[in-house]
């Protein structure tokens, strides 16, 4: 696979131990691969939009009711869309053996995982967040909630991608991992969901929502430090099987 080739473009006598160039190279390759599979990018977004379009059909079109449910529903659906797209995070690399190559490379596996998660967020979390004001408008959310929804989703989906990567790495060697991945990762998503919807609710009630955003940013910092480590450990365990 291309990701391995591009890391290998260096003098073989002088292995590159620095994390920076390896991280950037992997980031570029992963992004290129993701952009070539447009359907894979579109699917989570389409899921997000479709399920949210089902909501008024289920609960009725009353604007007040929809406005009340909108922050929670948008957040839960963003969570599900992230989760569903995460199953394939390491899958193809595991199947063609390039994941094993990555663990053998002189770069720390931490940065390889971080690069893959970053790309995952760029092609799922970021578009989901950018799309959210449109859906918020369709669900009649008051305009006061838009900035908080956008910002909380930007920070929150990055957290979700990082946490989900641990689950994806743990289940990568299993053939049908989809539901199991959801089962093991969902409880870990709880704090992100609470503070994400909390930010929107605070904004709707007319309060400052910087506290919730700060907590989300703190969760993101902690997840960025710890989740790739755990995921790297999980990859090594999965490769054992």
């Amino acid at each position: 696979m291309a990701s391995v080739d591009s890391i290998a473009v260096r003098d073989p006598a002088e292995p590159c131990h620095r994390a920076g160039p390896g991280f950037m190279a992997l980031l570029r390759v992963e992004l290129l691969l993701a952009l070539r599979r447009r359907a894979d990018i579109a699917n989570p977004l389409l899921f997000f939009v479709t399920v949210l379009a089902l909501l008024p059909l289920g609960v009725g079109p009353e604007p007040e009711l929809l406005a009340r449910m909108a922050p929670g529903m948008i957040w839960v659906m963003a969570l599900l869309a992230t989760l569903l797209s995460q199953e394939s995070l390491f899958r193809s690399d595991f199947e063609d053996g390039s994941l094993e190559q990555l663990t053998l490379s002189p770069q720390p596996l931490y940065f390889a995982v971080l690069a893959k998660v970053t790309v995952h967020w760029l092609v799922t979390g970021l578009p989901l967040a950018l799309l959210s004001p449109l859906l918020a408008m369709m669900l009649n959310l008051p305009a006061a909630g838009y900035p908080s929804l956008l910002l909380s989703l930007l920070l929150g989906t990055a957290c979700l991608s990082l946490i989900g990567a641990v689950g994806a790495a743990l289940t990568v060697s299993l053939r049908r991992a989809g539901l199991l991945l959801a089962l093991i990762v969902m409880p870990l998503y709880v704090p992100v969901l609470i503070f994400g919807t909390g930010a929107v609710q605070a904004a709707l009630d007319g309060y400052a929502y910087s506290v919730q955003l700060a907590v989300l940013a703190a969760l993101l910092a902690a997840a960025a430090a710890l989740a790739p480590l755990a995921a790297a450990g999980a990859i090594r365990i999965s490769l054992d099987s």
Partner: protein
Amino acid sequence: MAWQWFHRLGSPRWFYQKTSGWLPWLAAASVLLLLVGTVWGLGFAPQDAKQGNSYRIIYIHVPAAFLALAGYYIMAFSGAIGLIWKMKLSYAVMRAAAPIGAVLTFIALFTGSLWGKPTWGTYWVWDARITSMLILLFLYVGVIALSRAFAREQVADKACALLALVGTVNIPIIYKSVDWWFTLHQPATIKLTESSSIDPSMFYPLLVMIIGFYCFYAWTLLVHTRNLILQREWRTQWAQQVLRGEPLGDAG
């Protein structure tokens, strides 16, 4: 010398032999304590001024809830020992602790909801503690589901240990965030604050029950771990001897 016991723990056989003597004591202690605590708590402790007799369910509910959380840490801790020192025994303890902890969490939730009906008039409230307990149950279920998914036990052990550790890091965050969420959405009609001071006449039977539950937990954990060890080591000579009912020589 001081660490010899620790290295010996790496041997499943040594553990199996050592603990067989503990089992009757633990069994006797837990049966006795649970019996005394139950009779004392249900029959002799005074009625609650506000809740009448329905409060008596705390004699099951509180010890189960205590051990549900402690059980997760026991599971994660033994998983961590397994990952760090590659100890077969601690993986067996971890795997044995998962279903026991899940059942205790379920008992805590179930008794809590039974208690809720006469006290708050409803079986289920999205209260902070109840919600955290439910998420704890999901965490347990996740570990159990993951352990069942792998074909090879060694991989399942390590994967579960890692997941339990990730859960351990998250539990305080989850509990705090659920608390915060609840204070934000707290419904005004229901007041969940228990009286923080409990009368000694009600507390002593509770204490007996808590100690009894700890003994019972240790007993079941030990029995389950020993069974898992036999299951995993059945090919070895000593396990065959045990399975045939022959006495074991000194493991040294």
